[in-house]
Structure formats: structure tokens, C-alpha cells
């Protein structure tokens, strides 16, 4: 289903009337970012896998395609989206995954979502269709705008389709559990990170560190022998629950006053002592439900060279860490170049973009 023409028409009309548009497909990530506003633009009419060539390790897919449908197709060829995007609901689409830029446990080993974006077509604020990047692994022609769309929360335009790098599923996978205090878990995961071990996911919560190994069967076995730990049964479920935030840690519920924060910090950062904590990505991603006020959390994240996001809950007026003035100016100019009428998801990312 190709719906470019109708989307184009809608965008041009909205731009002419300066009508804000809230780009929304399945709504599985409605909770994320600042409060959405504007008329809903649903891109799900533009859906379907355009081209999938397993031996090229590339899939081109329209943004309205269900994420689950894409993953099922890849799984049939024993391949995967290696960044393990969270769905947060059955209605999750590829476009929403790209726009939110979120990644799951394997991110620490394979790279972020943006590292898998090879190309994208974007409908800009003038109604023009722009085609960035391409369908090949290695491409340095033109600026890499396709990757910048990852995590842009739909503020630069309507993502129409993307070409993604895919990877084979690992032959073998195993999860180990260690009883460790927070500081020891952080130190240990970083020490392992400096050794040639096939670690593809880590999670620490409730005094337990879980470590996933992926790769050749012999390599996984050897790594287990080397680092020890007890084998975890049903580990596929564990990592899926972490990715989807259905694990008990996340189930306490969030509200206007009870906020789940995401802190991205240098992985070696010692315990932040802000409240109940779940740590992923070898120490780099920390989920915290703090008692401290937002300003203190932001200041602490900034002090260690990271940033904090009010991921779920809260008043949703300033979800993301404020930017330095020089970088903020680049953001504003980029936004006004791609969306001169300011119609795409205004305010969802930052109040002025």
C-alpha cells in the first residue's frame, strides 16, 4: 500500500493553514515525549515490505508496517532487527520505532537503532519527498540525514520508508545470573566489556546481574566457563520482558507524580543513589524511579556526562534534557529548514522544535 500522494496532499494543506499535525500510527508510544498536540496524521495507509533480500542483509519497509510483521518476516530467514526495538504494544509500527529511536538489550553489543538505518524517504514540511542514504551497507554520499531521523520524534517530517541493515540470529544463546551489589555489577560488566566475550545483553536489578551470551555454540560455552554464573532457564522471556518493560521492576506503575526516568550515562558511572534502579547496556542505561525532584536528576546526569529523560509519567512538559545553547541553535535551524511552518509534532521533543 503506497499512500505517499495522499500524505503529501494532507501535509501541503496543513502547511498552508499552519495546522499542527500529530503523527500517530498505532499509538503504542503515546506515552513518550512531551504531550502530543495537533490533528492526528495516521501514516498506516503506507505499509508493506518493499524489498527484502536476506543475503544482502537489507530490508526496505514502509513506515506504516507493523513491527511484528517485519520481525516475523525476518525470523523466517533466521534474521533479526539486531537493535531489538521495544514494541510497547501490538500496534507498534516501523515508523514509530524509527521516530522514537529506542533500542533493546542487544544495543550494547551491536549498536543503536540509527546504526542500522541505511536509508530513508522523508516527507518534509513543504510536501517534498526526500530520499536519503540508500540500500547498501557502506555509503558516504551526502549527509547521513536518514540516521538523524532515528529518535527525532517525527519533528522533521513524515518518515515514509526505511532501509534497514539486518543481521543473522545467533546460533546459540545463554543467560547467566550472578548475585552482585550494584557497584560490583557495574564494575564487573565493564571489565568483561574489555575482554573478547560474546556478551549481548546485561541487566542488573534486585541484587542480581543477568548476562546474555550470543554467538557460535562453542564460543558461548567457553565464555560461560570463563565467567561462571548460574544458567537461567526461560531466558528468552526475561529479555523480552526487559525490552517491553513488562518485567516486575517496571510494573509498579507511573503517574503524574511517580516517574520512570531513563538515564543514559557513561557505562562506568558509579551507582547514582537516586532511588530504585534497573541497569542495562553494561551500565550505560539506567532506569530509575526516584524520589528526587527533576532538577536534581538532570543535574546528576549532566555532571557525569549523560542525560536524563522523564520516560513515563510526570507532567510531560519538559521530558528531555535541555540542550546547550550552541547545539540548541542547530536544532532550531534544522527544524525550521525541514518544517518551515512548524507543523510536525510541535513541542513533542522540545518546546521550540
Amino acid at each position, binding site marked *: 500500500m503506497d499512500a505517499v500522494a495522499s500524505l503529501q496532499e494532507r501535509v501541503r494543506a496543513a502547511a498552508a493553514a499552519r495546522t499542527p499535525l500529530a503523527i500517530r500510527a498505532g499509538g503504542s508510544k503515546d506515552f513518550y515525549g512531551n504531550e502530543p498536540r495537533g490533528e492526528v496524521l495516521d501514516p498506516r495507509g503506507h505499509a508493506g515490505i518493499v524489498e527484502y533480500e536476506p543475503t544482502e542483509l*537489507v530490508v526496505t519497509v514502509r513506515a506504516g508496517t507493523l513491527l511484528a510483521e517485519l520481525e516475523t518476516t525476518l525470523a523466517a530467514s533466521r534474521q533479526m532487527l539486531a537493535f531489538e526495538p521495544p514494541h510497547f504494544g501490538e500496534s507498534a509500527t516501523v515508523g514509530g520505532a524509527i521516530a522514537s529511536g529506542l533500542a533493546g538489550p542487544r544495543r550494547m553489543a551491536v*549498536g543503536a537503532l540509527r546504526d542500522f538505518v541505511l536509508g530513508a524517504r522523508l516527507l518534509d514540511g513543504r510536501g517534498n519527498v526526500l530520499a536519503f542514504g540508500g540500500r547498501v551497507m557502506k555509503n558516504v554520499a551526502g549527509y547521513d540525514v536518514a540516521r538523524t531521523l532515528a529518535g527525532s520524534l517525527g519533528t522533521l517530517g513524515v518518515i515514509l520508508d526505511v532501509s534497514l541493515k539486518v543481521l543473522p540470529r545467533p546460533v546459540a544463546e545463554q543467560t547467566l545470573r550472578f548475585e552482585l551489589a550494584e557497584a560490583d555489577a557495574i564494575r564487573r560488566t565493564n571489565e568483561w566489556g*574489555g575482554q*573478547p566475550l560474546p556478551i549481548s545483553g546485561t541487566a542488573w536489578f534486585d541484587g542480581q546481574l543477568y548476562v546474555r551470551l550470543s554467538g*557460535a555454540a562453542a*564460543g558461548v560455552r*567457553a565464555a560461560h566457563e570463563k565467567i561462571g554464573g548460574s544458567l537461567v532457564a526461560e531466558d528468552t522471556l526475561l529479555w523480552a520482558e526487559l525490552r517491553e518493560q513488562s518485567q516486575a521492576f517496571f510494573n509498579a506503575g507511573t503517574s503524574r507524580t511517580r516517574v520512570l526516568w531513563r538515564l543514559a550515562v557513561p557505562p562506568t558511572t558509579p551507582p547514582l543513589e537516586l532511588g530504585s534502579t534497573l541497569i542495562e547496556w553494561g551500565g550505560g542505561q539506567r532506569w530509575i524511579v526516584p524520589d528526587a525532584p527533576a532538577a536534581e536528576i538532570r543535574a546528576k546526569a549532566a555532571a557525569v556526562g549523560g542525560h536524563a529523560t522523564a520516560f513515563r509519567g510526570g507532567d510531560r512538559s519538559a521530558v528531555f534534557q535541555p540542550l546547550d545553547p*550552541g547545539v540548541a541553535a542547530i536544532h532550531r*535551524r534544522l527544524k525550521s529548514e525541514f518544517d518551515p511552518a512548524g507543523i510536525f509534532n510541535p513541542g513533542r521533543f522540545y518546546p521550540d522544535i
Partner: protein
Amino acid sequence: MSPTAATGASRLLADRIPLEGVGRVDVERQRSVVDALRTFLPDHCLLWREEDTRPYECDGLTIYRQLPMVVALPETEDEVARIVRICHQQQVPIVPRGAGTGLSGGALPHGRGVLLSLAKFNRILKVDPLARTALVQPGVRNLAISEAVAHLGLYYAPDPSSQIACTIGGNIAENSGGVHCLKYGLTLQNVLRVRGVTSDGAIVEIGSEAPDAAGYDLLSLVVGSEGMLVVITEATVKLVPKPLKQQVIMASFDDVEKGGDAVAAVIAAGIIPAGMEMMDKPATAAVEPFVKAGYDLDAEAILLVESDGTPEEVAEEIDRIKSVLDGSGATRIAVSNSEAERLRFWAGRKAAFPAVGRISPDYYCMDGTIPRKRLGEVLKAISTMEGKYRLRCANVFHAGDGNLHPLIMFDANDPDSVVRAEQFGFEILELSIAVGGTVTGEHGVGVEKIHQLCQQFDAATLEAFFAVRRAFDPAGLLNPGKAIPTLARCAEYGRMHVHGGALKFPELPRY
């Protein structure tokens, strides 16, 4: 290409649609800029006499040359910022330069501008073994990073062929690759954060030592921007653990297409090798007498497939790769049995460029990426072009990621041969686009491939690239005229292109 190439360059396409900033140095303007820079730059950091600026007239693409008006070699970030501010005040273009090894003319000087060399920014500021990061200045050589952290069992993964000389700043500008990209990524995947100066003289930090930074992912734009968005003064790079073992398989094929199919079969089997490189017969014929790597000279193509990891992982993977290659019709298979043998198998591949330089006075290296499945077809087309342009071509191929490096052999002392080499190259680039690929996989657009971008991207997308540039550099002073063609240039090129080899505007002025 060897430095002798410039002699024959006078009839090149670039001369017919003049590149920006080509021409004689304006002495008045030069004096004004030199006087302003002298107020804070020490004498040894400022060059403007022709005998001093001559060494900067080109980068690794020697076919294009231009004297810079001024060369500045600052030693501190504050000096960089002051140079940039003065240039901003006087509307003087700035061309940043690392080691000058780039192959696409990205550091070609601007005749009315300042060439900003970061060569003196050559210190590794900090290594954090636990976090596996290094904080480096942009003039640090790529290989120097790996050497400095080798004792920690770590290294910096991207390994462009020029790694002994090229700098990390240049790697960031070009988003450089190497032979291990499929598994370890390009520069973008191995740089966490950069600090630099924008064209108004402001200091910005982009990216983060955390897994991500707040806001748009601007690092994706800056890496590979060919020095047009930010002058880099510092970078944090990622270090990865050195694999415990590396082993390489060398397989021969009696047909290049079969070799290409074998590459696809390895991937279909769910294997991502650390490196997968192919060389055709002309390439092995050029290197074998030179390095004695033990290549099968009867083979139409040879494939090198490397596995790395723990000894257990490598043993398992090598077995699997071997059986896939067996099943793909390899006529001969050899597995390296020692580190010495592994290095010998690679020596030929790594010496391919100089070896071709040994059998031909000059060569022109192309850099298209194509979908792997089109390899056979593309190589056949290149072989037809050899007849058409009466020039030989050897092909080396980063087969894992589809990045093809045809080496067109020509003689720079024969102007007609130069023009044929250039047209041969352009035809390969255009073919790369036609089969669904790109004109540059890792060398950058620079000035060399700027016209082919008119074919790869439509007008609206090219305009969006300029929009990105304006967002970072509203005044358009950083490396103007590179990487992104103006629509006017495309229109001019399109008109010429219609007439193919018979160029239409010999009367166009040269500035």
C-alpha cells in the same frame, strides 16, 4: 594516484565547470587575513609564501591542485576558534585538513581561503581502559590509537588502508571504513563524541560518552560531513577488545560470479565474518610477483574470509565457512595455519594499490558500493569498459559490504589517457548508481564525485543537504564547494553529460 598525475590534468572535466575557489591568490586579501591572524598566531603556525603553501596544494587525489591563500596550523582550540571567527568576519572560506591522505579531494584548498591544518593536534589526551574509550585530538593518526592501547588488549577498529598516516579527524570527516566494516562498522559506529568549532566560532559538543545524547543525533550528520559542518578539535573514540584469535580462509573461483555467489552463501548461512575481501585475476596477477602471497594465479577470483574471536568461536566458524565455500564451487581452499601465514594471505590484498602502481605509471581508484548480487554483472560491464576506453582495470572488492575499488591504470603523461581514465571512472560510478548502489562507500565525495551526486540524489534531496549545511554553517564558510553539488552545477553537468565524451564547453573560463 601517483603525484605525477597533475601534468595531464588540464583537460579534465573539473576545468570545464570550474570548482569553487580555483585560481590565483588575491594578494590584497591575503595580506588582510595574514595581518589579522598574526595578531595571535605565532610565526611558525602561519604560512602564505608560495614555497611554503605549495606542499598543501592537494590531498591524496593529486589530479586536482590549488594553492591555498593562507595555511594556518593552530596549536590550541582557542586559536582554532579565533581563526574561525576572523574568517567569519572577513567572509573567508576555511578548508580543514588532517594528514591529506584523502582520495576524493575533500581537503583541496580554496584559492580565496584559509587551509586549516589540524596537524599539530596530535596528542592522545586520555585513555580509559575500564570504559574502553580514548580522548584524542583530531591530528592523531588512526594507527597510533591502536598502538597506544595495545598493552591493554584493546584497539580502534576502523582500519582504512592509509591508517599508518591518516588522522582521526580526517576519518571523522570522511566516515572512513576499512576491511572490517561489516562486523565492526565505519567511523560513525566507533566515535562516541566530538568537540569542535562551528563557523561562527562557537564551541559545540556533539554525541556523548553515554550510549546516546539528548536531542537529534547530530553525530550522524557530522561524521562524514567532509569538514563542512564543524571543525573538530577533539574526539572520544570507542576501543574494542582485541580478538584472541584470527584465522583466514583463501578460496579460489574459476568465475567471478561464483565468487560473488559464495559471499552471499556465507551470509545466508548466518555468518558475519570479520572481513571478506575479493580480488579479480588482474589484481592477483599484479600483486603476486610483488608480495608472493601464494595466490592462485589461475583463479578468476580469490576470496579471503576472516574469522575472529575466541579460539573456540573461530574454530567453529572456520569449519562452517569452509563447508559453505566448498558447496559454492571453490576450486581451491587454504586455511591459514599460523599468524605468519594469515598475514601473508592478507599482504597481497593490502598491497593491491601499490602493486598496481608498480605495473602502471598511474592508477585511478574508484569507490562505488553495489548490492552484492549485482557484482558479476558490474565486473562484466567494467571489463567491457576496459576495451571501450583502452585502459586496464584491476578490481579489489570489500565483498562483505559490497564496496568495490576498481583500479583504472593509465599514464598521466598522456593527456588523452587521463581523460579516458576519468571518463572510465565516471561510467563506473554511474553504473553503481544504476544498479542501486552509491558512488562512494568510504572515500567521500570531495570534488571528485561531486557531479555524480546529481544523478544519485534528486533536486529536492540535494536542497535538503544544503539545508543541513545552513543549520550548522549559515554563512557557508566551511569547505565550500565540496561534497554537495549546487543545482546550477548539476544543470551544467547534465547538459554536458548528454553529449557524453564530446565535452561541450571548452570555452568556459577557468578561474
